[in-house]
């Protein structure tokens, strides 16, 4: 289990592969890996966005993430997890968050990665301030629940 708060650009695929090769090599118990990567978009709420600053509450961030992983482990059979979250100044297309969950069966991997992402979005003390192409700055007020886009 690893949690990393990252002040510079990170490559999610390098993070996963490095973690796997150190911690999960030859683990024949792994049948499923569910990975979520959140990336900065260049458009939000109808406005073109050219950058973002991610503030956080050092210490509480890690404490809440650890709590979320513990809760997930109580609900699903999890072999391992990796969470990386960016802070500081970010540009569009850069990675904001990586959640990887390794399990034996796919149901656990899907359920747990979704649980961790939803809990992270609602409980972990990160705050985003957007810089628009108009040079205006604005705090994002609230995360959506993320599940409103189903077409029918």
């Amino acid at each position: 289990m690893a949690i990393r708060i990252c002040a510079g650009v990170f490559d999610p695929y390098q993070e996963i592969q490095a973690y796997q090769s150190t911690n999960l090599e030859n683990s024949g118990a792994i049948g499923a890996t569910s990975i979520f990567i959140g990336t900065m978009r260049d458009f939000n709420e109808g406005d073109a966005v050219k950058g973002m600053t991610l503030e956080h509450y050092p210490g509480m961030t890690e404490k809440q993430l650890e709590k979320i992983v513990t809760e997930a482990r109580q609900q699903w059979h999890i072999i391992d997890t990796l969470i990386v979250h960016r802070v500081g100044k970010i540009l569009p297309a850069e990675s904001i968050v990586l959640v990887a969950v390794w399990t034996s069966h796919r149901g656990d991997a899907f359920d747990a990665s979704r649980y961790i992402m939803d809990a992270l979005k609602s409980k972990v003390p990160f705050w985003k301030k957007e810089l628009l192409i108009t040079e205006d700055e604005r705090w994002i007020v609230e995360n959506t629940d993320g599940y409103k886009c189903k077409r029918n």
Partner: protein
Amino acid sequence: MLMSIKVRYFASLKESIGRQEDILDFKELSTVNEIWRQANPGKPLPANTLAAVNMDYVELDSSVKDGDEVAFFPPVTGG
């Protein structure tokens, strides 16, 4: 005995208050609400503000003891 409480503010709340940290002294056991009032006299706690004591979420009527770190911040928007 005097209680010393560190109060921290984050994100838009930090900007609107114009401070990121206060150190308050209390003569008796206090609550999160009471700490806000003493640190920000005359300024009501903005709606939706979240509070944490020692990096765990708490209700506003939770009690606070010597050495605690109390934090106030807007809804989180990470991920």
